[in-house]
Every structure is written in C-alpha cells, then in structure tokens.
C-alpha cells in the first residue's frame, strides 16, 4: 500500500511541500539584513510560556528607559494585571499619569489622573512633536514592534545590545549612532540602556544585556498578549483532531473493506 501511495502521488505532493517552504523562506529572506543571533526565549517553542517575573522587570525597564520617547498606545494599564501586577499596583501605576478628558457639564476639557482602563499615556502629543524632540527622527510606537520586525525578539535584543564604535572608515554624523544590527548601521536613537542604570526591586542593578532581555520579553508580550491562551487551546484542538483522524481512518478502512 505504501508503495502504491508513493507511486501514485509522492512526486506532486513533494513538489507542493517544496513550493510552500520555498515561498515562506523567500519571503523571509526578502527582509533580512545582518541576521541577529538566535537567543533562547522562554515563551518560544510549542509549549513555551511567558516568564512573568521577566515581564514585570521588563515593564520597569520600559518605563524608566524607553517611555520618555516611545509610546505603547495599544496597551491599557489594566493589561498589566495579566503579567502579575495586583489591582492596587496597577491603580498606583496609572495614577502617575494624567489624561485629557471631557467635555464636562460646562463644556470644558479637563485633565484627570489616569485609571486602569486608560490606554498607556504617550510621551508626545503627536508624531510631529516626537520628531521635534528627537532631531527629526520618529521614536515609533512599540505596541507591535516585535511582530513588525523580521527576527522578532532576536532582532530587538540584538539592536539594544548592538551599539559599538563605528569601524575606522565610517563617518557618523552628529546625533547618529553606529549599530551592528540596524539596517544601514546608522540609527538616530542613542544607546538607551547603560550598565547599572536600572535598579531592580531585588536590589540588584541590571546589566545592559539583562535589561535588554527583560524589556524585549515585555515587548513580545505587548505584541501578542494572548500567546499562552492560544497555545493552550491549540493543544486541545490538535489532540481532538488527532484522535478524530485516527477514528476517521479506521472507519474508512472498515467501510472500504468490501471494495478493496
């Protein structure tokens, strides 16, 4: 029977599998630059889950080292409860920010303290203001940055740790920095992390690599907050389909027994 299947359909079937792989890899090759080295991430892999402690530290890094320039406008403060902050902690975090609200009964807009249901408050009013404050470069919104870059987490980590002195023959204009992994190597973002800049609540201060790892994981969660639920449901779905396929195959053999 195997022989029969092979003879009848293997060549075209193989061709199609080949087709798919080639297309997928071609699409990826199209976006590549200096490929970022592959790292191990706890949330990758079939059963990988987010490391909540790392996400919480990552939020701290974002807040202290990135939030002055980059918004994450698609997250709400209440979402932080999903990574292990308590309701009170979230309320306290939100209350550090002010948002515009209104109009009130008298028709006036007013400023109020942010509440957990508010979206993350952006550092700038609009893109023009953000550019003005950054020598014309736009610090983009980080809500989806891990999905919006080829290489995902590996690229973000590589970018944050990829700053170095430019090679001898390269002139870097004022306000630009050399980065091994940025496309074209010249980026308008100053190295955002420094050794010892962030003091974790454990009392230890983070190295650039540690802070980069943590903030990258936080940004991965911000891009794909339902990853864990997705994988949990996925396992059940695949298990069901597997059992069903076996039953369907057995039934098929039975029914076809008198024909074969």
């Amino acid at each position, binding site marked *: *029977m195997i*022989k*029969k299947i092979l003879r*009848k*359909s293997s*060549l*075209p079937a193989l*061709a*199609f599998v*080949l*087709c*798919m792989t*080639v*297309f*997928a890899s*071609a*699409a990826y*090759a*199209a*976006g590549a630059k200096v490929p970022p080295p592959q790292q191990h991430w706890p949330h990758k892999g*079939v059963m990988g889950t987010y490391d909540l402690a790392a996400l919480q530290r990552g939020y701290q890094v974002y807040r202290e080292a990135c939030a002055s320039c980059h918004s994450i406008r*698609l997250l709400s403060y209440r*979402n932080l409860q999903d990574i292990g902050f308590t309701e009170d902690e979230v309320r306290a975090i939100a209350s550090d920010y002010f948002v515009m609200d209104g109009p009130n009964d008298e028709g006036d807009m007013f400023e109020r303290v942010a509440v957990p249901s508010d979206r993350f408050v952006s550092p700038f009013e609009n893109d023009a203001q953000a550019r003005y404050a950054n020598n014309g470069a736009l610090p*983009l919104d980080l*809500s*989806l940055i891990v*999905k*919006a*870059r*080829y290489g995902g987490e590996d690229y973000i980590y590589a970018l944050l740790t990829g700053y170095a002195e430019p090679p001898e023959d390269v002139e870097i204009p004022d306000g630009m920095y050399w980065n091994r992994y940025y*496309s074209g190597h010249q980026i308008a973002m100053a190295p955002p992390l420094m050794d010892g800049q962030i003091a974790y609540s454990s009392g230890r201060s983070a190295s650039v690599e540690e802070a980069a790892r943590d903030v990258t994981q936080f940004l991965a969660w911000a*891009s794909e*907050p*339902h990853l864990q639920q*997705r*994988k949990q*449901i*996925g*396992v059940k*779905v*695949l298990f069901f*389909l*597997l059992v*069903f*396929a076996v039953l*369907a*195959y057995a*039934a*098929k053999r039975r*029914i*076809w027994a008198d*024909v*074969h």
Partner: protein
Amino acid sequence: MAASKQKKSGFQNPVIRWIDDRLPIFTMMDKEYGAYPTPKNFNYFWNFGAIAMVMLVLMIVTGVFLAMSYTPHTSMAFDSVERIMRDVNYGWMLRYLHMNGAHFFFIAVYIHIFRGLYYGSYKRPRELLWILGVLIFLLMMATAFMGYSLPWSQMSGWGVTVITNLFSAIPFFGDAIVTWLWGGPSVGNPTLNRFFALHYLLPFVIVGVVFLHVWALHVSGSGNPSGVEPKTKKDTVPFHPYYTIKDTFGLTVFMFVYMAVVFFAPLALSHADHFQPFDPLVTPEQIVPEWYFLPFYAILRAFTMDIVFPFTGWITDGGIVFTAKLQGVIAMFGAIIVLFFLPWLDKSPVRSARYRPAYRWCNYLLVVAMVLLGYAGAQPAEGTMLWIARGATAYYFAHFLVLIPLLSRYEKTLPLPKSINEAVLKDKEEAQ
C-alpha cells in the same frame, strides 16, 4: 393535486416526508450526496474539492464575525483589527483563523487545480466545469487581495498602491481608470471603503459560482485517476458512505496542519510590515505580495524592456511605445486567461497523465516553473533572479500554448485500461 400524483418519497420521518413532497430538497441531497455514483478509484487528490468548500464556509463564518468588530476607515482600521486581537473575546482566534484560512484555502485550491491539470479533468465533457473553476480562482484572488488591504497596514496600503497602479499601464485611459478605482486622487478612505464592501460581497458570489461548479460536476460525473469514464456498476460506489468518510478523513488531516499553523505559528506566512500602520510617506524596503500571488507577480516583473514601434515618431513624440509595464500586465492576466482555453488547446483523447508519459513530465516542469516564479517573486527583480523569472515565464506560456498543442498531436500514449475496475485490479496486482 399534483403532489399526490407524484411518486412519494421513501423517507420514514413524517416531517421530512411532508417537506420533501413539497420541496424535494432531501431527495436532491440524497441523489447528489448519497447515491451519486462515484468512480471507486479516487486517490487523495480528490479530497481537495471538498476541503476547499469547507474552507470557503470557514472564511465566511470567521469573516462575518470579524466584520462585526472591524471599522473600514483609514484612521481606525488598523486599531480596530488590533482591538479584535486584544479585547474582543477570542478575537485573536478569529483573525488567525481567517488570516491563515486564506493561505490554506489557496493551498487547497492550488492542489485542486494541479489535480485537474494532471488528470486532464478539463477535457470534454467537463470544459464548462473547468471554466467555472478558473473563474472561482480569479474571484478568490480578487477577494484575498481586497481582504489583505483591510487591516490598512504598511503592506496593505503599499500592496494596494502597487497593484492598482498597474492599471495605469492601459493606454489612453490608464490614469483615469486608476483614479476611478481609488475613488480619489490617491489611495485613501474611499478605496478602503469600497474594498471592504467588495470583500464582503465577493465570497458570496464565489458561493454562487461554486454551486454552478458542483452542479456541472454532477451532470458530467466525476473524473478519476485513470481518465476512463465509468461504464458499469462495478466501476463506481455511492458517494455516501464511501466518499463521505474518505473526505472526512482527508479533511481532518488537512485541518490538523492548518490548526497547527493557526495556534503555533500564526505568523509563519506573513510579513513584518503587515504589523505597522500604513504610512503613505514611508515606502517599505520591499513590497512583497502574499505567497499565492508571487508566481504571477514574478511574471509581471519579468518584462523590463519598453518596445518602441518603428516609424511611429510622426504620431507622438518618441513614437508609440509598448511599455514594459503593459507587457507585464498583459502577461500576468494572460497567465490566468490561458487556463480558460486549456480544454481547446489540449486535443489529446487521453485524459490522465498516467498514460501520457511526455505530458506527465511537462506537468512536473510546470510545477518547477511555478516554484521558481514564486521564489523570484519574493526577490528584487534584478540580476540572475530576473533571468530565472524570465525563463520560467517562457516555460509557463510555452507549456500551454506550444507544448500541450504539440503533444496532443505527436505524443505516444500508453494503452488505456478497459475500465476503471480493470485499472484498480491491475494496480492491486502491481502493489503485491
């Protein structure tokens, strides 16, 4: 009464019988999906029609639910899709099912089309059935293209810009047509609005054409791998339970692969630039269509030389030019149009490639050409890639317009089995 004169249906259940006497829908279902005599020698390639049908239904169901939370406005579309991903209950699942559903729908349909080519399913008496199929393929491409524009991402917006701009290659009216397609001076809100309206509409048009496709199938009867038509009862089995169970099994395996992608690698087939909002001022490093368009995209870009007609300088400055862009557009659409004429290009009386050794190899070459085109379509059109695309394009057209007509005259075909039953018995002998 007319009803009482007719032969009563044999259904036991009184409700079903009551309905069936007035509207014989159960009789029809029984005839078309129960008793429908089906060749008994289908291989697993024959699963993909049913699989495509299930995918169509799945796309419509997930699509309707997505549409309930989607906002077709340029300033809100991207965020509304993200709201579906983050805040709508199981919205991420709906979107990943729909997004990857499009990929797997195309996988199923490409295999289905290849099956048709390989086993000569387009030949008399199934020409119209084949033509309806090609029409479905065209409608699917239009639907997927417009659907891809809806999240209004960088890739959406730039994809729309590139593809709609193709129409500007049409002489004289090109620019006017493009403005008309856009509904304004540039790709903008009217464009997104009409694309959403059409993306909602076209799948239902597809359902209509699928209905005709299946109707035509049930008039001519199914083909089979031997290419010999059923002659006696020995050659066929009733559709139910034989093929209902076989389709169930095939569908389940297909679903397993599809669900593995949806739940464990939902972005495996998508582009990073699809996760950034559209910015008309920032061009992505490379604008790459979805994989199912890549072979045709490569054909489009394989043409790079303007042709100037000699001695036409007196008509317009520089003479009349057959632009590379227009050549590419004609070739790209031509690559699909040629499929409509296939039943008349191939006059060989033998259907199945099993008994046509030379045609069989041409078919494999066609797959190779499609893979090469697909690969080239994702790369910048320059250097060796461009030459590969040109070579594969040449083969694609030569395959349909030269090789097939020649083969149908000169090919030495192998002897056909007398009947399907005989073909099956022979296979069994060989397998032992």
